[in-house]
């Protein structure tokens, strides 16, 4: 094996070591071509463009809203996972666990961090949409990504809505009761929706309060134990999973549609 050349600076020797090269794959990049290769060769860095248009660093144009949305999502994922260590989604424990998260669990702020970050994310996602709309960044070739963005915004609101129930206090139960009543009016699938009465065999209605889409969402005829568990699973696993897939497409398409949008 080659002896390390002690005359070279530490950083340079580190950059040429086998450990560094096995992780970073390229040595210390010196030319533009090597720099581009270093960016593209890293799973984390390749999310960024290898070269940045100068306007991309002008925060006044993008407000950094998309990046902030993602940052808040990452925050919510971390704090959410931590909350799962203490919170139990059962009628017996849910409310008292929320109280304990403030009063007994170390520092007592993890739930507040999660809650306020969630509020901020809803706000920021809306502002992101406003920015994209006002700058006309939804126009071709970005119209598909606008559609993905609309889905992501809906998922954000659904995450917010499902998380709303988990404290299991009066506000949560009745807010979700009211909110999920909207599902009654789903065309054909809700028992009070248009067309539901048409789905009948003789005198027997196929769509009734015990078989419509709201029943499937709540796991019952009213907001109860099954609803708490369903919303918990949707909030922690289901919706984040779907959102992450759409986010991957969203970020990918930003690059493929010509990079971050800028002033013409």
């Amino acid at each position: 094996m080659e002896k390390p050349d002690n005359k070279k600076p530490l950083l340079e020797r580190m950059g040429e070591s086998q450990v560094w090269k096995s992780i970073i794959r390229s040595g210390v990049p010196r030319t533009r071509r090597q720099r581009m290769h270093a960016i593209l060769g890293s799973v984390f860095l390749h999310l960024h463009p290898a070269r940045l248009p100068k306007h991309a660093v002008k925060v006044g144009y993008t407000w950094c809203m998309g990046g902030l949305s993602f940052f808040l999502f990452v925050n919510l994922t971390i704090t959410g996972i931590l909350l799962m260590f203490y919170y139990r989604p059962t009628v017996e424990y849910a409310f008292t666990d929320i109280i304990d998260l403030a009063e007994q669990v170390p520092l007592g702020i993890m739930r507040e961090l999660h809650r306020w970050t969630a509020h901020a994310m809803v706000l920021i996602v809306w502002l992101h949409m406003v920015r994209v709309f006002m700058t006309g960044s939804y126009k071709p070739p970005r119209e598909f990504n606008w559609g993905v963005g609309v889905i992501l915004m809906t998922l954000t609101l659904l995450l917010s809505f499902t998380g709303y129930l988990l404290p299991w206090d009066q506000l949560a139960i009745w807010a979700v009761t009211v909110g999920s009543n909207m599902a009654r009016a789903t065309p054909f699938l809700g028992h009070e929706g248009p067309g539901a009465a048409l789905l009948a065999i003789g005198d027997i209605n196929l769509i009734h309060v015990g078989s419509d889409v709201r029943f499937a969402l709540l796991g019952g005829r009213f907001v109860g134990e099954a609803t708490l568990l369903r919303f918990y699973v949707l909030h922690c696993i289901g919706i984040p999973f779907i959102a992450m897939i759409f986010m991957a497409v969203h970020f990918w398409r930003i690059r493929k549609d010509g990079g971050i949008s800028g002033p013409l």
Partner: protein
Amino acid sequence: MSENKQAPRAAVGSSTTSPGSDNNDIRRRGFFRWLALGWLAFAAATGGFFIVIIRFLYPNVLFEPPQTFKIGFPDEFSPNSVDTRFKKKHNAWVVRDDESIFALSTTCTHLGCTPNWLLTENKFKCPCHGSGFRITGINFEGPAPRPLERFKIGLLDDGQILVDKTKSYKWEKGEWENKDSFLKV
């Protein structure tokens, strides 16, 4: 398709990267100063939150039975008997022999299962691998390498017995001689 990709970039490039604009706005030194500041702030925030996370994992309140507990008055325990009332909640047997009362740990010294007190055979028998212990806690059969441990035991001012599981005594270290490991009766 490639035209589509290029169109916005070209439009952008024409206005912002004209040859003369390199010396405007951001200079190299200033850029790196802000970059360094940004990374420092990011590292500080991340490090701070990391500490918060670690602390978060250590609960302040445990929903477990307390480590020290009262078991009643000495005359509630009849001579040469094993009291199994505290086994399930506190993982301890209270044994009274001819001259003393002591608290035995219910953790088998082989691999940590919980043995049973077999009254008819007058021994503790572990269901996992068959270790057997005398009423004193001394091992005599099976793979257990050493006797059961005893917990600290003492009399309170009100005359009741207090068992303290934070301190245990091992026979093989001669700690059963310690006066806190048994209660003279």
